[in-house]
């Protein structure tokens, strides 16, 4: 079969114009799948950016057991955290700082003795990553007298774990959505193929090859896929525009979040190409099924 893209595309567009409802359903199906996948990918991208943005703000506290030698612990901490600023904070200083931090509410500390808080070491680690902070905290845990190490970002740990799991979930979701969408699109396009079975039968009778009959349907599937995916990307861009400023107002760490983090060009391209591929797969399945029925 000679491939004539203009001719086949013209026929595909004419068919879509004649049956806009079917084309709309196919496009909407792909829109939903691409939007759901894109939303998850964008959320993961944003979360990763937040994790990266967190670096540089970490302060690790090492609380010492009662009776531990603060100065010896500080020396040991400097040894395991070379280049980091280590401050030895006696219990009394810690209590005073707490009172300062509480301001007018410091009344609640009346009657609390200096022994209420443990001696501690404060280790500043600017520019450190979450993994680096975790590693440093583990090393500081081996400091003599160390009872507890806190780098105060449990929620970040959870976020990191969410991102890691989310990546796996995104892959699984994308695969599941791709298959489900291909089947849905295939069934939708079956309506289109069914509506044109007479045309297919007559074309076969006048000597059309399967490729000639299929080409417009395949192009139709790709066009619906591309259109659905493009609309989904536009919707995601709009959502970014609405949600991200609110997120930035609520969470300081999201301040640097940009479109390149949530919807980077490679993701946009992948979503649009994925939509086209799913449309192609769906139409190929439905046309193959119908052509088998007309097999001379």
């Amino acid at each position, binding site marked *: 079969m000679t491939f004539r893209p203009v001719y086949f595309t013209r026929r595909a567009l004419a068919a879509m114009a004649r049956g806009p409802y079917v084309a709309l359903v196919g496009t909407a199906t792909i829109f939903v799948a691409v939007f759901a996948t894109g939303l998850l990918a964008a959320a993961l991208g944003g979360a990763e950016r937040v994790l990266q943005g967190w670096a540089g703000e970490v302060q690790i506290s090492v609380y010492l057991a009662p009776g531990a030698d603060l100065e010896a612990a500080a020396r040991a901490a400097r040894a395991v955290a070379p280049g980091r600023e280590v401050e030895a904070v006696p219990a009394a200083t810690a209590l005073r700082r707490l009172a300062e931090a509480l301001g007018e509410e410091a009344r609640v500390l009346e009657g609390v003795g200096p022994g209420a808080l443990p001696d501690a070491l404060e280790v500043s680690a600017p520019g450190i990553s979450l993994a680096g902070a975790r590693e440093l905290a583990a090393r500081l845990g081996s400091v003599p007298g160390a009872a507890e190490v806190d780098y105060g970002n449990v929620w970040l740990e959870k976020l990191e774990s969410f991102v890691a799991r989310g990546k796996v979930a995104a892959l699984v979701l994308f695969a599941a959505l791709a298959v489900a969408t291909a089947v849905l699109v295939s069934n939708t396009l079956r309506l289109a193929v069914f509506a044109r079975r*007479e045309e297919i039968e007559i*074309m076969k*009778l*006048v*000597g059309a090859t399967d490729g000639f009959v299929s080409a417009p349907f395949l192009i139709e599937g790709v066009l619906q896929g591309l259109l659905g995916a493009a609309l989904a990307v536009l919707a995601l861009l709009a959502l970014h525009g609405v949600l991200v400023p609110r997120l930035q107002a609520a969470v300081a760490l999201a301040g640097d979040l940009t479109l390149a983090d949530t919807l980077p060009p490679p993701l946009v391209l992948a979503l649009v190409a994925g939509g086209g591929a799913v449309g192609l797969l769906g139409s190929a399945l439905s046309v193959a099924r119908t052509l088998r029925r007309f097999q*001379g």
Partner: protein
Amino acid sequence: MTLAIDKGEFVFLTGASGAGKSTLLKLIFCDEPATSGQLLLFGKNVAKIRPAAIPYVRRNIGVVFQDFKLLPQRTVAENVALPLEVRTLPDREIKKRVRALLRSVGLEHRGDKFPPSLSGGEQQRVAVARALAADPALLLADEPTGNLDPDRTLEVMDLLYGANARGTTVVVATHDRSLLERYKRRVVVLERGRLVSDGDSVRRAQSS
């Protein structure tokens, strides 16, 4: 059955309903698979043809149906153009040939109309033009006048006759005896899938 049709012949296939006329035509244009025997078409045994080769056999065959089988959403010209598009001829060539074909069936001014707006006779003339579009070596017509009044019947038969005069082999399945009487051509009579008579006049067919 054993039946041979020579190049350039005009043959009527006749017999009662269920005799096998349409089935024989379907076997010839590979719309029905043969379960046994041989069917030699242009020197090839199409009874054992691969499915992928069927379109290329059909391109040498024009088919006219009783119910016209025109696409209602395509114009008359687009319907006639279909076999030429399938052969991926250039657009300009297709337009030229469609114009000539519509002129030959007297519908040159109806090219932009849609089939449902045409009379039955006109629709069958469009179907004949489509069947002849690719200049086929063989033209099959399955009850081509079954839905037409006597005047329109003669118009369509004249077109088939004209195609035969230009060298196309024509096989017409019909149970209309008036056609057999009017056009004194070879008549093959079928009955329950068997050939019961093969002769050059309707009288011979009747006497069998």
